[in-house]
């Protein structure tokens, strides 16, 4: 949800800046290899559609997920000249670091899950299992490597879609907002 908000905010900010030129500005963003972002999403889809359970049962989906992160890195690298993509890249790297440090999963604690699932308590959430329809594994804080980079930030109720996200997600959101402001206009100086 937060990233959907980022795209919406970016569009609104771009519209305020450019008014009726907004779509021309966005179409002028010199992004290459757009298909890599789509492919990354396709590769993640099986994992995002799998309900929760043992991590052993989703090994194939996890491999595809890790491949998708490679696609994202290549996409970021191929567009590294854009400031917004540089910020997105930093966010992707932050997420990648914590995912690789925790066996290929984004960790989330039972406490965080209780926050975003009202009516539950931390003790109800079994650890070291895949949190369904996500890239997360439920781990205790003391089991989590690079905890500060994991899904510890929360948009709780009364937000309509309670969500946990990471610092990397915030950077990705910021990068998308910056990117949607369009290419930097070159200032021409008259002699």
């Amino acid at each position, binding site marked *: 949800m937060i990233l959907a908000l980022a795209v919406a905010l970016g569009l609104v900010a771009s519209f305020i800046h450019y008014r009726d030129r907004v779509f021309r500005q966005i*179409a002028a963003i010199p992004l290459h290899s757009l298909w890599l972002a789509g492919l990354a999403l396709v590769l993640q889809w099986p994992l995002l559609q799998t309900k929760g359970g043992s991590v052993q049962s989703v090994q194939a989906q996890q491999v595809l997920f890790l491949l998708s992160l490679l696609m994202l890195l290549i996409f970021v690298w191929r567009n590294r000249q854009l400031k917004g993509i540089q910020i997105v890249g930093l966010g992707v790297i932050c997420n990648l670091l914590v995912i690789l440090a925790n066996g290929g999963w984004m960790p989330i604690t039972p406490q965080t*899950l209780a926050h975003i699932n009202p009516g539950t308590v931390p003790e109800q959430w079994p650890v070291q299992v895949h949190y*369904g329809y996500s890239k*997360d594994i439920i781990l205790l804080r003391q089991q989590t490597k690079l905890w500060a980079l994991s*899904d510890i930030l929360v948009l709780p109720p009364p937000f309509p879609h309670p969500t*946990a996200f990471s610092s990397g997600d915030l950077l*990705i959101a910021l990068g998308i907002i910056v990117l949607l402001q369009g290419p930097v206009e070159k200032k021409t100086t008259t002699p």
Partner: protein
Amino acid sequence: MQKLNKFWLQYGTPHNLRLLYILLALIALAIAGGAPSGGGGGGGLMRSIGY
């Protein structure tokens, strides 16, 4: 079919298609790069363990 053709001819310009691809790519990037964990359903896990 004819309406679809007409719509495509009017709006399916290279500029508009480029805009659409960029927006779709950014949405894909947002989901693939982050996709935060949502609540309100327990990710299916709670249902699967009988909660």
